[in-house]
């Protein structure tokens, strides 16, 4: 699969998890593509952690408002009905369980639903930004991520990088399939038709439980 197609497959499948009226927070990268694939009749309310509910798409060229930006510093628009607020209110919304779904990327995730995505000691430490709060606060956490990084597994038995949060991930969606985090471990629920179960297992360090009713990935 080409890089572009990988991103599209993941974003399209993640979009199917969202329900009409959900309050959703999107991380940077693949998660930002998700709104492009929402089914007809599904409208979600996008929260941006720097302080707005009702975030709209990027403005047309020449209509940028320097006071209206997202958490990545990009220009955005405010949809009708949007509201903006300070950072304490924004994170009250996040920690208080008022965000239905948080969609993030990952460096590593493991069998317990532990996630690492904020630092690689000695190499790169961008900081956690709002990720630690989003993980513990959102009702449902979905990882939208490529299955491997340069051929190395990202879905581990146990994360080796410093954690962003312990035991908070609910679902992992990659170009290879859909994995649910359960108390028994990681369950492969759907598999992309281009891959075999053996290939998915080989690309995954963690033990995978194969669902009895394993389905083709709905994309």
């Amino acid at each position: 699969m080409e890089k572009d197609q990988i991103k599209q497959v993941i974003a399209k499948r993640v979009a199917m998890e969202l329900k009409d009226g959900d309050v959703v927070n999107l991380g940077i990268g693949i998660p930002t593509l998700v709104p492009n694939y929402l089914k007809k009749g599904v409208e979600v309310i996008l929260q941006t952690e720097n302080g707005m509910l009702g975030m709209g798409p990027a403005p047309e060229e020449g209509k940028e408002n320097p006071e209206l930006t997202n958490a990545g510093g990009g220009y955005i628009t405010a949809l009708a009905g949007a509201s903006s607020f300070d950072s304490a209110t924004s994170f009250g919304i996040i920690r208080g369980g008022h965000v239905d779904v948080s969609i993030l990327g990952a460096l590593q995730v493991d069998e317990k639903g532990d996630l690492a995505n904020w630092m690689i000691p000695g190499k790169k430490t961008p900081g956690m930004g709002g990720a630690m709060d989003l993980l513990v606060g959102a009702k449902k956490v979905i990882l939208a991520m490529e299955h491997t990084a340069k051929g190395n597994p990202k879905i581990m038995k146990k994360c080796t990088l410093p954690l962003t949060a312990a035991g908070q991930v609910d679902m992992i969606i990659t170009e290879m399939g859909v994995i649910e985090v359960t108390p028994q471990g990681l369950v492969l629920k759907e598999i992309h038709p281009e891959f075999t179960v053996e290939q998915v297992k080989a690309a995954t360090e963690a033990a995978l439980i194969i669902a009895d009713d394993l389905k083709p990935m709905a994309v």
Partner: protein
Amino acid sequence: MNKFISIEKAVSQVKEGMTVMVGGFLANGTPNAIVDALAQSGVKNLTLICNDTAYPDKGVGQLIANKQVKKLIVSHIGTNPCTSEQMNSGELDIEFVPQGTLAERIRSGGAGLGGFLTTTGMGTIVAEGKPVVCVEGKEYLLEKPLRADIALVGASVGDKSGNLIYKGTSQNFNPLMASAADLVIAEISELVEVGELAPEAVRTPAIFVDYIVEK
């Protein structure tokens, strides 16, 4: 009471070794005229409290690039390579704080609270050395309040008494920081007369603002 001061006077309030809070999120909402002048001033050994370090040539990122900061309390530095370079070389001491925890610590500092309890950071290195408090069977980290000697905030609209309004997403940390410092300087983009702002639209009440700089 006249709160107006020049940018030069505002910058001269920031003295070597002080702890300074600066509002803004990737420079949106940052009092950029004051910060630009502060970067020119060369005042050093600052402890800087802000959400992020913006960019090397924009916002508080300039203070990092100029090596005016010795300690940084921040949630994200990924947009400014100077910050990680100085961290790796040991020149800059950084305390990483989850963004929601940073906001609430500042709010606590301004609201007279001894801190607050949160599950954010449990099971991570953020929890190291912090007391854990059990409330109704659930464990939380105790996070302490943050205050500063000076807060520099940026407002879209303000009246001459210092009541402030923030447009778009420029609010972010500004109202919190305005409550949590001994001295507060607000940079106002659009200045109006006292009485022109609807009381219920004001986000930072004038009592928090000591000085005003007109942009």
